[in-house]
C-alpha cells in the first residue's frame, strides 16, 4: 500500500482532470492519492468524478489560502 501526491494548483482545465486521472490509473487496490487543488471546478468536481469511477474519497480538507487537499483511495 503506497501513497502518492500530485499538485495541480498551477494547472488549468482540462489538465487538472487529466493529471488526476493519469495518477489514479497508477493506483493499486489500497493505494492512496493525495491531490492538492485550488478552489472552484477542481475542488468541486474531482471528488465527484473519483467517486463515480469507484474510488473512495477519504478526505477533503483545507490546507492554506485557496488550496485544498483531496485524499482518494483505490
Amino acid at each position, binding site marked *: 500500500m503506497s501513497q502518492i501526491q500530485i499538485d495541480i494548483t498551477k*494547472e488549468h482545465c*482540462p*489538465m487538472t*482532470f*487529466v493529471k*488526476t*486521472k*493519469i495518477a489514479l490509473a497508477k493506483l493499486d487496490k489500497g493505494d492512496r492519492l493525495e491531490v492538492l487543488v485550488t478552489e472552484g471546478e477542481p475542488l468541486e468536481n474531482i471528488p465527484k*468524478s473519483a467517486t463515480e469511477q469507484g474510488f473512495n474519497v477519504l478526505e477533503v480538507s483545507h490546507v492554506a489560502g485557496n488550496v485544498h487537499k483531496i485524499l482518494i483511495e483505490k
Partner: protein
Amino acid sequence: MSDNTKTKKLSIISFSGDFDKLVAAFTLASGSAAVNYEVNIFFTFWGLNAVKKKRGRTFLGKGFLARFFGFLMGGINNVPLSRLNFGGASPKLMTYMMRKRNVATLNELVEAAIALNVNLYACEMSMHILGLTKDDFIPEVKGVLGVATFLELSEGGDKLFI
C-alpha cells in the same frame, strides 16, 4: 435508469481543422475522458490535418492535385487560427501565450487525449478525395469510418460538430 448508470459518451466531429477549434475539440475530448466519458473523435476534411503523421507541409496523397492540396494544408504544425491568422504567425504566438500562462498547448492536449484512450477515427470519404491512406495518419488513429459506423459508435451519447 438513473443518470449514474447511463453510459457517458461524447463523440466529436472534427471538421474545421483550425487551430483554435482543434484546441476546443481536444480540450473537450481529454477533459471528458478524464472524468470517465467514452470519447470518440471523427476527423473529416480539414480536421484530418490534425492527425497526419507528417506534422509539416509535405506533398502527401495520390495524384497531382491531391499532393498539391496536401502541401497547402500541411499537418498539425500548420493549422491556421480561424481569425487573425496573419499568415500563420498567430498560432505560434497563441502557443507562446498558452505556455506562458500554463495552459495546455494543442500538442499537449493531443498527447493527453491519446494517453486517456480517446478513440480517434478518420473519415473514409475525405481520405478518398485527398488521396490519403490510413498509413498517412498517426498510429493512434484506430480506424477509417463512414457515416453509418460513426452513427453506430456515437449512439446514446452527445455529439458535437467542431
